[in-house]
């Protein structure tokens, strides 16, 4: 009887189904939202979706698997250059082909680098990925005939299909592509993290020896995390190529890698929702500061650097006072509400909040 009950439970509330429902809801909301707002806001929301893809991948690697990568900007560059090479000379490959090619190429490079990374720990891994971050753009500068040197490669935009009408804004079309990519990525990652791989990631992060004793292949788990994470970065890079219209080394500096880290720290290490919060911050903080700078008529040397200064401050302050980020704060509020007004799953004591671990991961 109990077995039947649990099987029924699994049919009625399958995790995949829940994620799918959530994704459908998000898709509907985003579709409605994007048709209500102007081209400029569509353009900005596209950036949020792009950063969310990259940040979600990085959060899987850093937040859940404990491998710090300072080189995800470089992996985005690999995706972006793959897309740009396909779209060079006005080849009209379908968007889906371009995006998948970018995922594939970055994933393959991720396998190679993941094997190297799995042997390295802590500062040694940080050092290797840091070098990756500064080396990759140099390759593009060096081989001008292929990658276009400093001025980069121009990317042919993806025009909206005819059935959407002749005057459909291209910004909205790109926003839809980015939303779709972000939602698919999130659903796939959420499923991966809910299942055995996700548990293995966390086990390896928390205690390698214990994970190995429990029968987890530590190295393989780390390589898998790196590859999935790299593939996300590649997808984000290809989308970024469409978004900016040009792929150049100057777009993939060390600052890009550090901004992705900023995003996952502000949003919340180890949570997919945190990646979205962090990406919102990454896109809207510069807009706010540039608005503020023009109102206060600040000189350009101040205005241009204000966002980076703010990110830097936020990173330092977040680590000092709120190391769990926005998502951590939300969880605390939710957990407090549950504990205060009953309805606690798992039969926790009413009115008692475990501040150290308000809610489980993911």
């Amino acid at each position, binding site marked *: 009887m109990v077995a039947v009950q649990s099987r029924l439970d699994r049919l009625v509330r399958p995790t995949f189904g829940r994620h799918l429902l959530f994704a459908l809801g998000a898709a509907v909301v985003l579709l409605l939202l994007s048709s209500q707002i102007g081209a400029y806001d569509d353009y900005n929301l596209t950036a949020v979706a792009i950063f969310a893809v990259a940040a979600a991948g990085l959060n899987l690697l850093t937040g859940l698997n404990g491998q710090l990568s300072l080189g995800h900007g470089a992996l985005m560059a690999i995706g972006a250059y793959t897309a740009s090479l396909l779209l060079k000379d006005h080849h009209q490959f379908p968007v889906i082909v371009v995006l998948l090619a970018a995922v594939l190429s970055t994933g393959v490079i991720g396998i190679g680098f993941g094997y*190297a990374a799995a042997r390295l720990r802590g500062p040694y891994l940080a050092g290797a990925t840091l070098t990756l971050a500064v080396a990759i753009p140099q390759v593009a500068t060096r081989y001008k005939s292929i990658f276009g040197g400093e001025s980069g490669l121009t990317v042919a935009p993806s025009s909206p299909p005819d059935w959407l009408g002749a005057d459909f804004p291209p910004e909205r079309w790109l926003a839809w592509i980015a939303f779709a990519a972000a939602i698919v990525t999130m659903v796939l990652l959420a499923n991966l993290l809910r299942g055995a791989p996700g548990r293995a990631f966390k086990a390896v992060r928390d205690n390698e020896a214990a994970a190995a004793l429990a029968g987890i292949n530590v190295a393989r788990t780390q390589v898998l995390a790196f590859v999935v994470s790299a593939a996300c970065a590649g997808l984000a890079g290809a989308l970024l190529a469409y978004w900016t219209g040009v792929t150049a080394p100057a777009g993939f500096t060390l600052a890009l890698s550090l901004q992705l880290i900023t995003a996952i720290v502000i949003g919340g290490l180890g949570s997919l929702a945190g990646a979205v919060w962090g990406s919102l911050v990454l896109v809207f903080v510069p807009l706010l500061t540039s608005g503020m700078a023009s109102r206060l008529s600040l000189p350009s040397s101040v205005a241009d650097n204000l966002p980076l200064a703010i990110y830097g401050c936020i*990173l330092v302050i*977040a680590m*000092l006072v709120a190391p769990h980020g926005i998502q951590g704060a939300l969880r605390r509020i939710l957990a407090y509400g549950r504990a205060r007004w009953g309805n606690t799953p798992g039969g926790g004591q009413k009115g008692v909040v475990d501040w150290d671990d308000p809610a489980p991961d993911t």
Partner: protein
Amino acid sequence: MSRFFVLTLNGVTQGAIYAAMALALVMIWRATKVINFAQGAMAMFTTYLAVFAIEHGTPYWVGFLVALVSGLLLGAIVERVIVRPVESAPALNVVILTLGLLLFLEALAPMAFGGQIRSFPPAFSIVGLRLGTSQVPFSPFDLFTLGSVVAVMLLLLVLFQKTDLGLRMRASAFNPEVSRLLGIRVGRMLTLGWALASLVGALAGVLIAPSLLLYPTFMDDVLVFGFTGAVLGGLDSAVGAVVGGLLMGFALTYVGGYFGSDLETVGALVILIAVLMVRPSGLFSVQRVRQV
């Protein structure tokens, strides 16, 4: 004169600067088990302070002193105000903290000093010395660079090996608990360690600034190469850091000289990965049995 000889001479000077950067990173790593990713940005900032002083009419040597003293102070302040509160936090948090400091300083410098790219005056002539009739590609300024790095390293060696203060600093890094029981002010030793490391970094900044131009991210590559050198040597060894830094200097000038300067960072990546694949914790590290 053979190309190899020229490149080797360049490599020594470059390597000395990377060695200084590597040594700064290793000093902090040994004292507090933190990789200070803001090391380069801190050196950039102190170099800006030096050029600010020089642009306001002070002689070069005052600017030089400004850089070193501000480096000393900046290191102490960073340790006391930012790093101390997260002493017991997970390693990742502290790394992210120093990355935040890096972003902040690199944005603050153009805000405070203006965004234009500047040149930094050298202390001595950068024209090669004359040996008999032929000109050697080694300038008085190169000699000064090499000499000051060696001098600082010797001073540090004397400090750590021959003085009571150095012994206390080593003890605090080796075992803070026992040192505290023995009456050592461990906190002060850590602050001093950060301050000294930051001074060495500031020295690297002033010395390399004349051959690069001065802009907010100009120390990024130096940090990467210094860090690569430190990792090559094995982060726990000061000797390893110096050797690793020098190796990086030679390797990068050879790569730059024979394959083009655009490939220097790629060369660094290849060398780093190759060495770490064979020895995952550096050349000079003591192999430790992993705890189970």
